[in-house]
């Protein structure tokens, strides 16, 4: 029978604790959860009949709930929703083949949790502000008083747009720099994407020691005071979804 795999857990010598925890929770469609263990690591799985498998939002949320519960007591690597292994045997072989890499990743996330920080701007407002600023700067073109052709005028119009875009980007980069500096001071690992949408200045995930949550909240509050025009949203804590650098073969 196939099995749905939820996470790979660092059990060390503590399999009893994991068994006890699993006895109290259920997998998808109210199935029992059990483990496939190899030395110090274990895959948490539940039997699944692939014909009966329902993939929908609530099932994905339920799946994430199992990972969440496990993460409260164990160091683990969350597995992406929808991962099904053929059998106990293939699961075991998979653990064996990737043992070292799994251990490395587990070590990296040990005692740490993930947070997400997104910072949005009102892009129109930001543009207006920057425009006002650039208007006060001396004009760059059309200064010699020579009658320009339509092509030159077109080019200078483009140049003006180009300079504006550059200044907007520079402004945003400075904000990002400031945010990431703040995060780096927390002794965290973080990864970010900038400008994913026009209004998203930064979308960053942060891996932080469990007891440093307050410091993070404080840092975000300080940033907010600096940038009152920006919208911040900090979420967490999450299992380390964004910090598993492993493709399992």
């Amino acid at each position, binding site marked *: 029978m196939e099995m749905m795999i939820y996470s790979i857990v660092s059990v060390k010598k503590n399999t009893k604790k994991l068994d006890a925890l699993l006895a109290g929770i259920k997998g998808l469609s109210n199935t029992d959860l059990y483990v496939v263990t190899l030395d110090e690591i274990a895959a948490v799985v539940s039997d699944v009949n692939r014909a009966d498998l329902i993939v929908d939002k609530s099932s994905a*949320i*339920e799946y*994430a*709930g199992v990972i*969440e519960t496990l993460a409260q007591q164990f160091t683990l690597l969350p597995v992406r929703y929808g991962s099904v292994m053929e059998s106990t045997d293939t699961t075991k072989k998979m653990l064996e083949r990737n043992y070292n890499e799994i251990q490395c990743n587990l070590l990296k996330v040990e005692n740490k949790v993930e*947070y997400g920080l*997104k910072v*949005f701007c009102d892009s129109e407002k930001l543009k207006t502000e920057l425009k006002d600023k650039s208007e006060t700067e001396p004009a760059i073109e059309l200064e010699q008083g020579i009658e320009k*052709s*339509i*092509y*030159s*005028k*077109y*080019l200078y119009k*483009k*140049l003006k747009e*180009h*300079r504006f875009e550059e200044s907007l980007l520079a402004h945003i980069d400075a904000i990002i720099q400031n945010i990431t500096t703040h995060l780096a001071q927390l002794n965290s690992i973080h990864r970010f*994407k*900038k*400008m*994913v*949408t*026009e*209004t*998203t200045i930064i*979308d960053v995930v942060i891996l932080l020691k469990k007891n440093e*949550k307050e410091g*993070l*909240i404080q840092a*975000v*509050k300080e940033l*907010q005071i600096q940038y009152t025009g*920006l*919208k*911040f*949203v*900090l*979420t*967490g*804590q*999450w299992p380390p979804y964004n910090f598993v650098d492993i493709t399992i073969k």
Partner: protein
Amino acid sequence: MSENKILFNTGSLDEISEEMAKLASKEESRLELSPENADSGLAKLVLTIVELIRKLVEKQAMRRVDGGSLTEEEIERLGETLMKLEMKMEELKKHFNLTDRDLNINLGPLGNLM
């Protein structure tokens, strides 16, 4: 999963969820190629790439102009070229019934080029 995971936020939750929905739908403009729309799908793909290159050329040209190394004559010619390219592009978009939005592509960490 009913637990609230928001630790801190500024701006109203309505605004934020709207922004996040935009973020999540970011990639909605993906290219759908199928036997039924092979023609228009291909036009979209090709024009997207052409537009990308045109924008890159334009950016590069602006850097040169900004550098101040070009003569009046060069500026004149460059302006003419870029303007004609833009006009040609408009024609093509019209011809294939495509809007700027259709030709928008996501460059991942670089954001939207257009």
